[in-house]
């Protein structure tokens, strides 16, 4: 019960945060000298009527604060306006957000599956050649610019023809059976996942190694050993649990970093995700789309942090609720 109350309280706390985020984003975007309807005006397929409606909805002739109020009102109603192509922003976002979530979730899952054991092993074999090699490899992983790595992998894909370049699905995706559909998506995901995985694995492995070394050095682990517990039990029952807890807090940050890193990777691989959407929107100065995707990015980040906090109370009873 206490946990539920805490979760409820944390969810309530995100509301003022989202409001401030929206104010900041709104004013940054309004600072730009660009006419928000310029692209729409140039598009011949958009009728005069729609233009009029948009101008009215955004309240362009009114002061900025009123404009913000109008924007917030229609945002809460779920009306995010239209893109410069005349499509609905909400439809566009619905199409892109799951793709970005899929990418980040797969990457986080893989980094945890691989990074945690590697961190433990490196800590147990501390200062062995294995540990040294891993340290060098993770340094390299952290130093390579994501977009450059993506470009290199692209060369590889084009040269070998082993991987499809761009998109998330093949053109004949709709005609496939379920299993080949999953295979097709996995095939397309492989390269972007490899880039993001390499970059975030390095950080996680290092963190896990450092935590594990700290814990192995602590008194209760020495005591457990002195008591004659098997090494397996010492490590996997006592040490591991305490070493993983700080990583759960990091999960939120990892998610944030991935959202940012994914933007460039999505751009290079032409992956239909939120990051590429916002980039294209920025380049076209498509204000509605920029504003909405900024809010969605922030909401995803806040939700990620929230999730990490909730996970932490479940795994670590010491956290005050």
């Amino acid at each position, binding site marked *: 019960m206490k946990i539920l109350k805490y979760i409820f309280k944390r969810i309530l706390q995100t509301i003022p945060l989202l409001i401030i985020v929206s104010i900041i*984003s709104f004013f940054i*975007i309004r600072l730009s000298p660009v006419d928000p309807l310029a692209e729409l005006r140039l598009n011949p397929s958009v009728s005069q009527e729609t233009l009029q409606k948009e101008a009215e909805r955004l309240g362009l002739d009114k002061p900025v604060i009123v404009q913000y109020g109008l924007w917030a009102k229609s945002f809460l109603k779920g009306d995010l306006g239209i893109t410069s192509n005349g499509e609905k922003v909400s439809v566009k976002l619905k199409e892109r957000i799951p793709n970005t979530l899929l990418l980040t979730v797969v990457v986080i899952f893989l980094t945890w599956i691989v990074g945690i054991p590697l961190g433990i092993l490196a800590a147990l074999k501390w200062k062995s050649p294995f540990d040294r090699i891993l340290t060098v490899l993770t340094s390299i992983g952290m*130093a390579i610019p994501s*977009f450059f790595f993506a470009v290199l992998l692209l*060369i590889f894909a084009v040269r070998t023809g082993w991987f499809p370049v761009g998109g998330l699905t093949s053109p004949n995706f709709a005609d496939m059976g379920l299993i080949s559909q999953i295979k097709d998506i996995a095939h397309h995901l492989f390269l972007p996942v490899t880039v993001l995985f390499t970059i975030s694995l390095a950080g996680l492995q290092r963190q896990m190694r450092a935590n594990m070394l*700290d814990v192995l050095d602590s008194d209760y682990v020495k005591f457990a050993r002195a008591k004659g517990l098997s090494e397996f039990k010492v490590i996997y029952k006592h040490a591991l649990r305490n070493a993983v807890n700080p990583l759960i807090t990091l999960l939120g940050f990892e998610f944030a970093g991935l959202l940012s890193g994914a933007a460039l990777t999505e751009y290079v691989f032409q992956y239909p995700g939120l990051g590429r959407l916002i980039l294209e929107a920025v380049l076209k100065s498509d204000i509605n789309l920029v504003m909405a995707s900024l809010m969605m990015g922030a909401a995803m980040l806040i939700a990620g942090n929230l999730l990490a906090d909730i996970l932490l109370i479940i795994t670590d009873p010491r956290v005050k609720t």
Partner: protein
Amino acid sequence: MKEVIEQLLKDKFAKAAIIVLGLIYAALFLADFLAPYTKDFSDRSMAYVPPSKIFTIDENGRLSKPYTYNYIREFDNETLQMQYKLDRSQKYYLKFFAKGMPYKFLGIIPMKRHLVTVEDSGRLFLLGTDINGRDVFSRLLFGGRISMTIGFLALFVLFPIGLLYGGISGYFGGKADTLMMRFAEAVMSIPSFYLLIILASILPSGMTSIQRFILIVVILALIGWAGFARVVRGMVLSIKTREFVQAAKSIGQSDLGIIVKHILPQTTSFVIVAMTLSVPSYILSESGLSFLGLGIQQPDASWGNMLKEAQEFTNIIYRPWLLTPGFLIFVAVLAFNLIGDTIRDVLDPKSQMR
């Protein structure tokens, strides 16, 4: 501080990293002299020329002064592509420390000598040319000046802001603290790269390159201050309970004076570590931004905007020399990371035991 430097020189990796960075910065400092061409030199008839081949053994198999051939463009009737072939009819000998294109060393001293140039009407493109027929090697040197300093400049803007914001928030506490921290958290809640591209995109066009450079520095600084301010606030919360703060208060020191003169200096070692650790991320941010075309603009060079050409398939497959800026970014970031790791180890006594 002395101990830190000693430890740095003891560590093999850190020592190598320092040497590499030293060489890079020395090369960038001497860029005008080392580069065979000036930043704005371009030969439109020589777009995408492959790297010049330098020969030291002549056609008779005898050792000779280093020389090179020019490339000529030829249409290959079989592959239907434009190709560059060596024009073996005319040799061009390399000249060292000879007079070449005039430049101003460090923007002040007019000079003409270059480390290496080639005889008149010869062309020396050590790393090939880009779409505008500009020498990639020379532009790497000039671009490095921007890429390798922008991170430091951003930090010098960001740190005072973060220190003051965190200091005020932590020192006064209460409602001001809550409000200020909520604001900082909100800034942190926007995925940083999204914020970066949006800020960069609202920069008005038609600025001079210096103005744009300064604004990019400010934007980079605007991304990182919030996280830094939060950590500083945490430290200030504990520092402000110490006796010397009470003492300063009792002799009537103003609040701002206490924060700036007495509290913030206590965070120095943290600030140094945080700075060395965050330089690489700013180098990466700038290159990412310029890669997208939102950062440093043509005709100025930066490693990021030079890589912009690598976005095209034909370029990355047939003209691999255009990828060289990426390797330099990688080497520089790796070197900064290795130094950062060592500094962290030295300043954290717990990790030293290991």
